């Protein structure tokens, strides 16, 4: 629990909207592709023409059941839809089809890992299906607004947590854990910048130890992990300082301004107070047979927590490494390919989280776009393990692989980087170095042990880095004694 000003604690709940990666919309056959020209992916139903009716996309049910199972939750059957009424130009029907009384997913939890290595259980109240609105475009219309309905009707699942989160750090851990799950299940790309994952934060503060909840605010429009953390931090501090200066907190919806790093109240015009929910008469309640749920459950991939435990057991990795690698499905798959190829799990993990991550970050690439394939990285590590090249040369080779896209063995071959393991060749080089440095030899023999490193360096230089360092060490020790 994070304590603010020594006597305050924060109570946080997150509402996470995840755009489901279906080919067509929740209630129409229009495409859901991102980035098409405005209003080219909106059909009669998305435009809410008079007389049109919604038809549920059943693919969405499968995705929701997967998520529910991954969140250890109940699947409601029948599950039903409701209308949420409000006027906004990008909401063509004047109501959003959502779920109220019988959300498809209810009563689950998620265990998150905290920085101190402990874990915390966050309750998941519910997850319900709903359709997304379109977009209002306020630029380039000379004082008017444009409406793009391409996004209108795109399926969303809104995951509502219990107010079990106590700090911005916990909020991020929870959000990242949800992100990892939806990516594992392949139900969404979870891209926050494109809006396929969005987060609203309900925040209140109270005196430490108090049982009563304070008045909460809902902060919207937070579109990156970093901003979620900052927005919550700001809101906690704002509320504490309001209360401490004798003011009260207004229950309201606020918008996060990432430029100024503040939150401001939404104008009341931007949201409705009373959504007048009622059951959607155009859709019958949906019955999900047990066999349908069971089939989906059995078909689910290994989830992040299971994978982490397996990495510890099967590869002997540390908890930290396993957790990091398992957090992202693509990263985990990459790792497994590297480890299988190299037969050295620890070295594979180090390389992925070291050199490879550094290059990826530098170029802002994700693991799927790595310029060195998992197989090639595995081979590189194998060449270190079988002493074909030294660890030091391996780094240069890796850089060459990254920049040229050439394969490891071709580079070694072409550049003649093969490690010198021929003992006589090393002996010759060692003798040469000793002979060329009589002064240093004298000092070494008179007790300056530090100079051993100098000789190693000279031999490595002589071999252009290709000599096997442990062999060099051994032979040097022997020769220097002679």
């Amino acid at each position: 629990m994070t304590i603010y000003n020594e006597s305050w604690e924060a109570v946080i709940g997150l509402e996470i909207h995840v755009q489901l990666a279906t080919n067509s919309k929740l209630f129409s056959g229009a495409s859901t592709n991102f980035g098409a020209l405005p209003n080219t992916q909106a059909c009669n139903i998305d435009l809410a023409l008079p007389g049109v009716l919604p038809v549920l996309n059943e693919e969405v049910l499968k995705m929701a059941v997967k998520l529910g199972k991954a969140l250890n939750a109940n699947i409601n059957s029948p599950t039903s839809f409701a209308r949420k009424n409000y006027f906004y130009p990008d909401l063509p029907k004047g109501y959003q089809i959502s779920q109220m009384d019988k959300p498809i997913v209810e009563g689950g939890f998620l265990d998150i890992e905290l920085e101190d290595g402990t874990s915390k259980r966050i309750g998941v109240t519910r997850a319900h299906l709903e359709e997304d609105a379109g977009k209002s475009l306020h630029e380039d219309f000379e004082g008017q607004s444009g409406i793009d309905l391409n996004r209108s009707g795109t399926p969303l699942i809104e995951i509502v947590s219990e107010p079990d989160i106590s700090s911005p750090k916990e909020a991020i851990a929870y959000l990242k854990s949800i992100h990892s799950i939806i990516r594992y299940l392949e139900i969404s790309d979870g891209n926050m910048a494109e809006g396929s994952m969005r987060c609203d934060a309900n925040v209140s503060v109270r005196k430490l130890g108090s049982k009563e909840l304070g008045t909460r605010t809902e902060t919207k429009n937070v579109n990156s992990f970093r901003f979620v953390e900052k927005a919550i931090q700001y809101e906690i501090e704002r509320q504490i300082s309001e209360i401490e200066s004798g003011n009260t907190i207004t229950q309201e919806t606020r918008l996060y301004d990432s430029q100024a790093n503040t939150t401001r109240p939404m104008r009341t015009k931007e949201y409705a107070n009373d959504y007048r929910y009622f059951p959607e008469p155009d859709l019958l309640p949906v019955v999900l047979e047990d066999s349908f749920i069971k089939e989906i459950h059995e078909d689910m991939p290994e989830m992040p927590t299971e994978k982490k435990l397996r990495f510890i057991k099967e590869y002997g990795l540390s908890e930290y490494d396993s957790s990091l690698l398992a957090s992202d499905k693509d990263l985990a798959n990459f790792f497994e390919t590297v480890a299988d190829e190299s037969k050295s799990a620890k070295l594979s993990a180090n390389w992925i989280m070291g050199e490879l991550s550094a290059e990826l970050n530098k170029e802002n690439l994700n693991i799927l776009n790595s310029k060195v394939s998992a197989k090639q990285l595995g081979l590189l590590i194998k060449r270190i393990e079988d002493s074909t090249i030294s660890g030091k040369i391996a780094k240069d080779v890796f850089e060459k692989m990254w920049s040229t896209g050439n394969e490891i063995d071709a580079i070694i071959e072409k550049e003649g980087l093969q490690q010198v393991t021929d003992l006589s060749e090393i002996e010759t080089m060692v003798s040469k170095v000793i002979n060329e440095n009589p002064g240093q030899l004298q000092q070494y023999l008179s007790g300056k042990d530090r100079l051993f490193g100098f000789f190693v360096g000279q031999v490595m230089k002589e071999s252009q880095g290709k000599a096997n360092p442990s062999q060099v060490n051994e032979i040097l020790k022997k020769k220097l004694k002679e």
Partner: protein
Amino acid sequence: MKLHELSLKEQLNGLIEGSFSSTELTEHYLNRISNLDKDLNSYITVTADLALQQAALSDERYKSSKALPLDGIPIAHKDIFCTEDVLTTCGSKMLSNFKAPYSSTVVNKLSSEGVVILGKTNMDEFAMGSSNETSFFGPVKNPWNKEYVPGGSSGGSAACVSAQLASAATATDTGGSIRQPAALCGLTGIKPTYGRVSRYGMIAFASSLDQGGVLARSAEDSAILLESMSGHDPKDSTSLKEEVPSFLDSIDSSINGIKIGLPKEFFERDLPEYVESSTKEAIETYKNLGAEIHEISLPNVDLSLPVYYIIAPAECSANLSRYDGVRYGYRCEDPKDIEDLYMRTREEGFGSEVKRRVLIGTYALSAGYYDAYYLKAQKCRRLVANDFSKAFESVDVILSPTTPGTSFKSGEKSNDPIEMYLQDIFTIPANLAGLPGISFPCGNHDGLPLGVQLVGNSLQEAKLLQAAHQFQKVTDWHNKFPEV
């Protein structure tokens, strides 16, 4: 006999036999419309060019022996059914400029059976009304007496079939909008089981109650048209998957032994003497046809009207939110901001009955009132439906008057919504329970027709059509037409 005096079935036979062409028939109706409808106002749009094109195609199909089941029959569609490239107004200023870019399933189904579309018929605005006086396109007159209303909301469909300006017409029924105008205009009108006819492309008023159906001259004509309109539609999630039987197959069979229930709650009402006597006469006719008459009870049926006037407005308040001036339809002049656009578009675009119901519905769904109104209404709706289920354990059909009286004068009830709402007291229960109902003529009082209603169990349209047809074989009320 003149072409318009023939029933739909007779016209179909004439076309098949080559006694006349669809073009002749269509031109005949178009001439009648241009001569007679200025006064009646039963059509909002007459699609003369389209009709003649369709008729010509139909004649070609007859010549090449490729005729479709309803080939060449000129009908009218209620202006609530979206019709591609044709103005579809729903009787409202809000959609007075709306040319539908697609066709409803009903229009598509009937077109694929070969019908000719004469035009789109007048109606109460967004199907809200019982007199066809709330239309933006002016009131429709009752062909039997032009000082009187034709009923509503399908008043245009009823008036045009009654005045023989179409062979038959499509219509919709949310609380009686097919059956009440059928009764007031001397027609046969059937509202099938909820979900029997697709609602796709039928502009929504109250989604859980709306159902498409037919206004025609007889049970036989109704059966022919309804069969072509019915059936499962994957575009309507509430559409029933059940097979549609041939409604004509059983229509000629005897109804000897049929059990007819008379709900005492309906007959205890204070009804005009002429309604009671006409209804009694209809019951006598059924007795002569071999029916068993049973008194039954629908103990919660009195809840129907209040329940309906919570649920229908609640659903309509959401269904009509899309008319905001943003994408199509009427838009106010020079809106100063989005709020102004919404407010003035809806203030200027909707008539007062529509606004009244949107307000009632919005209120009933509001936080703090939802449980007391909407939720309670849903529970009461279930009670009414249960009463019917119980009744159908002992009877086959339930008989009552369709309306509490014959038609009324224009303007007589338009300032008294409650009085107007009471028009539907006998028809609303079937909508709440999702059951099929049929009204057909059973008498005449002071030159105005009167109807009797049969309500059947779920999916029992065939039985209703059979019972009505057997009645019409021994009576003559359905063959009487007004002089226009």
